[in-house]
């Protein structure tokens, strides 16, 4: 029993590890992508848009297969399961993050830029004091939301052979099928709780931020 719990925890650690690394990469690459997406250049815009749509249209599951089996087959490069997972989630996360960053900047009215400049602020001063703070407020709840979605989606990686928390749970249930036919309920309840413990604080933080912002909107 205690042993099973530890196994679940180590499965959870795999989930968390993949999510955290992917989220970290997505934040950095997505922010850069977002900056590129605000470009006025038509070609750049279209390329970014196509990238985003392709990533969105294809289920993450398909991407996992493509990277894990396809790319390995084609190039001979052998990505491990976790590396493949991180690549897929980063490709996805960076696209979504880029779109969030783009949206956050474009939501700032033109007159915020113009009145900053009229006051004699330089461009760096304007971005630092006026534009970034407003974009960030807009961005934070959405980023947390994206992170939560990414954490939940990592459950898919068991498909490419990674033993994350859900897979461990299934193994435990199967191993105890005859001794404890009701184990499934308990195991899934435990997993539910684990996801809850990770994601709930995130959504609480996001809600607190939104609430705090309402006054100064």
């Amino acid at each position, binding site marked *: 029993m205690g042993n099973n719990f530890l196994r679940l925890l180590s499965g959870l650690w795999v989930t968390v590890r993949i999510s955290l690394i992917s989220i970290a990469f997505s934040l950095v690459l997505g922010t850069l992508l977002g900056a590129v997406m605000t470009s006025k250049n038509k070609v750049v815009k279209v390329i970014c848009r196509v990238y985003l749509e392709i990533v969105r249209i294809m289920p993450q599951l398909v991407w996992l297969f493509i990277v894990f089996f396809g790319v390995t087959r084609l190039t001979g490069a052998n990505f491990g399961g976790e590396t493949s997972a991180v690549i897929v989630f980063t490709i996805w996360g960076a696209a979504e993050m880029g779109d969030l960053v783009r949206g956050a900047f474009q939501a700032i009215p033109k*007159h915020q830029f*113009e*009145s*900053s400049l009229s*006051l*004699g602020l330089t461009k760096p001063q304007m971005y630092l004091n006026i534009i970034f703070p*407003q974009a960030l*407020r807009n961005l934070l709840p959405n980023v947390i939301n994206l992170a939560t979605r990414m954490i939940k989606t990592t459950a898919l990686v068991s498909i490419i052979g990674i033993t994350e928390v859900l897979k461990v749970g299934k193994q435990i249930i199967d191993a105890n099928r005859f001794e404890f036919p009701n184990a499934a309920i308990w195991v899934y309840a435990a997993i539910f709780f684990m996801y809850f413990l990770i994601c709930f604080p995130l959504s609480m933080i996001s809600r607190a931020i939104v609430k705090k912002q309402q006054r*100064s909107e």
Partner: protein
Amino acid sequence: MTEQEQNASAANPPEHIIDISGLVKSFGDNVVLDGIDMSVSRGEVVVLIGPSGCGKSTLLRCLNGLEPIQGGSISLHGEPVVYGSKSLYKIRQKIGMVFQSYDLFPHLTVLKNIMLSPIKVQKRSKEDTEKEAMELLERVGLADKAKSYPSELSGGQKQRVAICRSLIMNPEIMLLDEITAALDPEMVHEVLNVVLDLAKNGTTMMIVTHEMAFAEAVADRIIFLDGGSIIEQGVPSEFFKRPQTERAERFLKTFTYSK
């Protein structure tokens, strides 16, 4: 004017704050301003009027380098205003601008809105700036709102704060672009009274407005703009009573109703 004052102003011709000569501004093929020549003297209040789309806002925007121009020149105290140039940052500190849209910074309190640019741009001390900001708020009757956020203010209050935010930079000239156009009628008054007060205290201003009664009261000179050029200008009492051009007359008629 007393005789003495007349002599004085004859000896020193009024100092020009703004000089515009041959200004041409177009958006693509659309020529919006087609050779504007004018200047504004220290202490003068010039009101720009004209039909919608005639380029009043565009003219004000050109004055502080928010728009590139296609011909002519603009200068502030003899310093050329050039779109995209480095000197623009210096020049903009001397030009206060208030727009029609409420453009306070929503993430900063009223006080911080006003204090931002003196501290960041002019590197003034925080104490000094805060003291002056409070005095300005007092002057427009909003001292009690210093700690509020813009979202907690009415439109009229926002515009009064926006005026303070420009005034604290101690500008040579204030450009006001239809600052009451988005306001409910009962708030128009409180904002325009602040502007009248500035005029009385000798603030140089260039004002765009659709409030003709206000224009008449505040202006030293009315400039009527249409079709990209200055069609007519004059002192308000003359202009409103006896417009010289048929176009100005027609424009003024759009503000009166008869059955």
